[in-house]
């Protein structure tokens, strides 16, 4: 039987907790993890298919780089640069899809770019690995700063508390919080137990913050307010302002997503 998801308590400084329960785990499981992550999710593939030719983008938390080759129907028409904290995953990402990719070893809370350098940014299944609401908000702010303030487009994906029926995960319901999400540890079985040698299997625990309904757009709005951005469609505001519009938000296969567009009126 597969080990199940358990509740997590962040009992250390968040950056140390993330080192132990996120970064170290990904470094150890990189190749095994990568072999299980090859199918792009439809909403993300569709988003990248609508990006105009000549645009440059950031994949913040690129993992094995599975989104770097997209859109497959016009390869090389846009360029996505992959950022990740795990060097073993970047070694895989740098040749994602059999072509050399641009990857950078860095932290999603760092800011190693000239401001507004990108036309678009995606952050898929990454922000949920940050251990406090403040750090998750900072990560969203980095994305809003990374893209063009007049046309930047952003897509963020995070794990939802609401898991679909096909998911193999069961979420503990004891500390269920409908508003604030839930901190959990998710096991990764690295080695199966061996019957001959009686060796137990090696299981590593990854930290996740599972998002509640409304929590992700809430984070975006809080962030935009702190940055002094108007929130809504540019046509609703007078000229001379800067803002961000939530184009869509929803749930897809156990994840919440939000699509944003920055504007200058």
């Amino acid at each position: 039987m597969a080990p199940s998801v358990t509740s997590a308590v962040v009992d250390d400084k968040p950056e140390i907790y993330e080192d132990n329960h996120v970064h170290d785990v990904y470094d150890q499981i990189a190749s095994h993890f990568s072999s299980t992550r090859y199918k792009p999710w439809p909403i993300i593939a569709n988003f990248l298919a609508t990006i105009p030719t000549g645009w440059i983008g950031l994949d913040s938390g690129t993992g094995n780089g599975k989104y770097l080759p997209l859109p497959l129907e016009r390869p090389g028409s846009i360029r996505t640069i992959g950022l990740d904290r795990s060097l073993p995953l970047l070694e895989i990402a740098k040749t994602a899809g059999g072509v050399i990719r641009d990857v950078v070893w860095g932290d999603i809370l760092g800011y190693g770019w000239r401001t507004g350098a990108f036309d678009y940014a995606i952050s898929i299944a990454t922000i949920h690995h940050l251990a406090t609401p403040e750090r998750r908000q900072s990560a969203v702010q980095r994305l809003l700063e990374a893209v063009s303030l007049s046309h930047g487009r952003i897509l963020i994906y995070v794990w939802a508390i609401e898991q679909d029926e096909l998911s193999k995960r069961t979420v503990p319901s004891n500390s269920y919080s409908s508003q604030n999400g839930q901190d959990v540890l998710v096991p990764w079985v690295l080695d199966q137990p061996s019957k001959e040698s009686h060796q137990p299997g090696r299981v590593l625990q990854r930290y996740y913050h599972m998002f509640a309904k409304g929590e992700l757009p809430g984070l975006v709005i809080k962030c935009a307010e702190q940055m002094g951005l108007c929130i809504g469609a540019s046509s609703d505001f007078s000229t001379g302002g800067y803002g961000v519009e939530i184009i869509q938000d929803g749930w897809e296969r156990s994840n919440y997503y939000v699509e944003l567009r920055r504007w200058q009126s």
Partner: protein
Amino acid sequence: MVRLITHNLLACHVKGCTSNNFPLEFKDVQVELRDAEFNSDFLRGFIPKIEWKALVDAARQVGNTSLPLELPEMLDDDFLKSLHHVLLEIHVEEGSMTCPNCHHVYPISNGIPNMLLAEHEIG
């Protein structure tokens, strides 16, 4: 990979280092050339976003002097081919990049730039 397309976007992000923190300066580089698929539509769309002087300087630091000092108005095929080569076919495999302002050094190893900072260096 540190190609010049990536280099043209990177800036120093050490705490308090907010001006004159771009472009980072290549030092002690080992370069490899690898063919990449030419896509003129991508280049034409990307050109307005390039920091041109930074690109010309970076190309010189890695041994390429094919780009004109000013971005030409006429984007003919010869020019686009040179630009393609500079942006996408020169790979900095080893070396480092230094911030012109605070002199922080970002190492490049195995084609991957290390932009990680210690927690106390993050703004």
